[in-house]
């Protein structure tokens, strides 16, 4: 699938085929995509625990549920629990930055050297950052980018995907992860039981309310010609509309088949 179509085709899938297994290779593809994500200071905050739902004891599965992450956890055959490893920067102490210097990714042309990393970047910037209130947000944002690559790779593999939030209070104990791993999201994976279109692309706020040019308040003008190009490339697709009879019929049929309330 072309990259733009992958973006356009992604939906948060809420109805999975509960008993259709996901090939392990496809999960690996998703994890490989996460590993290759853009990553500040090469830290790699994102960690993941992959779980086959049916190998989770029922009591643990029930503990992971929240009222809004209940049915989804039951239906998705594979769960990828994402964590932010808050301790990684102080464990590595600049090691991974030095690797970037060695391979020419951070070259002297841009001011980089081992000495700069060892004497300035780690002790004067990164270590204090880990003690700053802003650190968690920065690390989580970075981890989120990597998780998003896994998600899009899943779509490219023909899978249904959905980010959800497991019960954060007990997740560390369920998976016995280190204390400094912060629970981020769970990426639910399976084959969609709903049509891949799932009613259409979800409502979005107007483009020019979201993006600005030069300064806040000056909208970045949306060029209709670009929009048409993106429609042709299947990145912008049919938008979901309220009270779509076809979508309602689809949900009713899924509710009947899966035993869900209406």
């Amino acid at each position, binding site marked *: 699938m072309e990259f733009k179509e992958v973006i356009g085709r992604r939906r948060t899938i809420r109805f999975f085929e509960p008993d259709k297994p996901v090939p392990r290779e496809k999960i690996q593809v998703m994890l490989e995509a996460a590993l290759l994500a853009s990553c500040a200071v090469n830290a790699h905050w994102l960690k993941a625990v992959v779980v086959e739902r049916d190998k989770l004891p*029922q009591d643990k599965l029930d503990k992971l549920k929240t009222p809004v992450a*209940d049915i989804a956890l039951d239906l998705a055959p594979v769960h990828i629990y994402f964590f932010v490893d808050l301790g990684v920067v102080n464990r590595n102490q600049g090691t991974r930055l030095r690797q970037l210097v060695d391979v020419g990714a951070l070259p002297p042309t841009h001011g980089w050297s081992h000495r700069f990393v060892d004497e300035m970047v780690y002790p004067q910037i990164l270590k204090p950052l880990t003690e700053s209130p802003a650190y968690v947000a920065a690390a989580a944002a970075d981890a989120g980018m990597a998780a998003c690559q896994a998600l899009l790779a899943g779509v490219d593999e023909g899978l249904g995907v959905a980010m959800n939030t497991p019960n954060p209070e007990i997740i560390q104990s369920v998976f016995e992860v280190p204390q400094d791993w912060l629970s981020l999201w769970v990426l639910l994976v399976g084959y969609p039981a709903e049509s891949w279109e799932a009613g259409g692309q979800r409502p979005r706020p107007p483009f020019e309310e979201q993006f600005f040019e030069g300064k806040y308040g000056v909208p970045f003008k949306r060029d209709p010609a670009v929009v048409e190009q993106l429609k042709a490339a299947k990145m912008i697709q049919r938008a979901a509309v309220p009270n779509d009879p076809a979508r*309602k019929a689809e949900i009713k049929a899924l*509710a009947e088949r899966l035993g869900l309330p*209406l």
Partner: protein
Amino acid sequence: MELKPLLEYESVRNWLDGLRAHWGGDPANDDPERLPLLQAFCDFAGTDPDTVIGECVRIDKAGDRRISIKGRRKYAALIDEFQTASEESRLRKAKRGNTIRSFLIHNGILLAAGAQLAKKA
């Protein structure tokens, strides 16, 4: 406990209004089991529809309506019991439970029971 006709309860009217707004049709009549199942659940729980919803909400100090975790947990368990008390097929049991869950959902009480067919034996 003697119930009034179900349509006299505000929560029942809210339920049917919600169903009508979302799915269309005539929810009081298009599923002839809908109201009798709610009646049976109320008999089973020894309560009435408005009390069910009333116990699932609370008003916080700021005067805002909140879902009562205690109340929701109580009724989630009662609905599970009501569902399994039937000798019918798994799908029919699911319908019993899900009809009552629908009553709560359309009264603003998020209540999920998981997918009935995906549950491990």
